[in-house]
């Protein structure tokens, strides 16, 4: 530990790290490459294939329910991954559900980042009563176990796609705010910030041109680690029946609806379950590598 503190203080700027581009360094390791490939496939499935599903994901066929995955046509139609208790095609629902999960994560993370970044930069730079008030709010929010907080917010806002995005942003921003504030507190005392002040740069200019570029790598890493967390939380809420509502399918909801059928249809929870695990795995693999490449100091820090 004693030796590593020296490393912590080494100056870091986006340009000095330019031996090889971070993206190349990310892809050069096996786990980074596997993560990227996996994510690529899932993105194509979620945002491409899901617009050309073999069946309408909401179309019911009550003569053909709880059918196991097979290549053989049943009553004239092939259901590769089988059908659910209402005879809906599981493959079609899976693809659309995957799109919803990815869409929620890719909306929630940028919004939480923007909010946390703004709060963290302003409180860290300005200090004063606003800092005290907002940081006490962050402390309080981080004291409520995340899923419990999310469920309590759902109780007020209700369920549905926009509500779930709001709930997850509300639950997500404080993690960013706390880390960004700590970084900014250190950065504002550094020589380059003092120099900019001395030549008369405004606060906004200092924040935008000198502070922001230095916190961006950290925020990028936090965001990558936040993505799988959001995927899991959305799926968990939908699993409990408190997230995405039918007829819109989502991966968590598919597992929740299959819960009572584990006796006769093991594939029904298994197919979306494996899919969620793969999505989270892809993001985890990429996030771990991203952290090592961009910000080794965050190693060992759990998800936001």
């Amino acid at each position, binding site marked *: *530990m004693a030796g590593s503190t020296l490393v912590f203080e080494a100056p870091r700027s986006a340009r000095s790290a330019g031996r090889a581009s971070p993206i190349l360094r990310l892809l050069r390791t096996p786990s980074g490459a596997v993560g990227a490939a996996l994510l690529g496939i899932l993105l194509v499935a979620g945002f491409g294939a899901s617009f050309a599903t073999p069946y309408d994901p909401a179309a019911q066929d009550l003569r053909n329910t709880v059918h196991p995955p097979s290549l053989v046509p049943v009553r004239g139609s092939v259901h590769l991954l089988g059908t659910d208790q209402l005879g809906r095609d599981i493959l079609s629902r899976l693809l659309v559900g995957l799109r919803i999960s990815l869409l929620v994560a890719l909306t929630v993370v940028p919004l939480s980042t923007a909010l946390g970044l703004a709060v963290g930069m302003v409180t860290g730079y300005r200090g004063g009563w606003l800092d005290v008030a907002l940081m*006490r*709010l962050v*402390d*309080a*929010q981080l*004291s*409520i*176990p*995340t*899923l*419990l*907080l999310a*469920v*309590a*917010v*759902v*109780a*007020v*806002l209700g369920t549905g796609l926009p509500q779930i995005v709001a709930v997850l942003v509300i639950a997500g921003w404080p993690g960013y705010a706390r880390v960004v504030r700590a970084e900014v507190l250190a950065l504002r005392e550094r020589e380059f910030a003092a120099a900019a002040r001395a030549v008369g740069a405004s606060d906004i200019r200092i924040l935008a041109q000198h502070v922001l570029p230095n916190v961006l790598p950290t925020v990028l890493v936090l965001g990558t680690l936040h993505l*799988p967390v959001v995927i*899991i939380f959305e*799926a*968990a809420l939908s*699993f*409990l*029946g*408190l997230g995405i509502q039918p007829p819109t399918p989502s991966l*968590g909801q598919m*597992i*929740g609806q*299959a*819960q009572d059928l*584990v*006796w006769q249809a*093991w594939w029904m*929870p*298994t197919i979306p*379950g*494996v899919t*969620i*695990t793969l999505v*989270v*795995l892809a993001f*985890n*693999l990429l996030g771990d590598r991203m952290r090592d490449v961009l910000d080794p100091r965050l*190693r*060992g820090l*759990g998800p936001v």
Partner: protein
Amino acid sequence: MSGYLVRRLALSATAMLGVITIVFVLLHVSGDPASLLVTQDATRQDMERIRQAYGLDRPLSVQYARFIARVARGDLGYSYRQGLPVTELIADHLGATFELALASLAVAILLGVALGMAAATRRGSGVDTAAMTVALLGTSMPSFWLGLLLIIVFGVKLGWLPISGYGGWDHLVMPAFVLGGFYAAQVSRLTRTSLLEVLAQDYIRTGRAKGLRDRVVLFKHALRNAALPVLTVLGLSFGQMLGGALIVESIFAWPGMGRLAVQAVLGRDFPVVQGATIVGAAVFLAVNLTVDLVYGWVDPRLRSAAQRA
């Protein structure tokens, strides 16, 4: 030490006040708090009665002060689904939650530390790769999916374990494994990193050089020093297990606080949601406070650092 204690207590108290404030804001953000406190088929008169009973017709500042006073007295309101005081309802469910959290903590410690040690002592070997792959899968597998998988395999196919409910130790095995397994994965990764860092220190080399057996070096010299960061994470995890076992308790129909909270939201029983949130946060803060104090006791360096600060 007492200065540190006072400061730490004050911080927890402020956070708790913040939690109560957040819950108060949640109640009012919906526009009409009375509509959250009654069932859907309530009449206009019911709403009026609730408004008067809870003082919802008074100015916000008065309501806020009263709300804090009420919570401080331990009065969390009434559940209209069950017709019981929320405090009583939560007290009934807290025991099961504690039982599950303790068992899960045991799983997280035993499995996590063992995997981490196996990986660190055989760095770069097949054991290391296997242990870390298991850990990665463990963090990537959502608990509701792992839970159902175990139910399918051990409950439905093999019939070894009961798939839900509360009872003997056999009811505890699957929920504890699912809840503890996720944290075991994190603990194993942290134990590995921390142990590798310690094993590279000079005093370990000295120990080996003077002929100490591997086992003595590992358990007596390395593990003790590597334990500190692991201890912090375990403390945080225990707090989360106590307050956040909503999913696991729901899957296995475990009669704890998490399941109570989920069913309250589904049944639009807002006073119970409110109470569960406040109690969940209080337990989380209390566990963290204890861990911090124990930490200061285990590692005197932190105590003095806190005093200097």
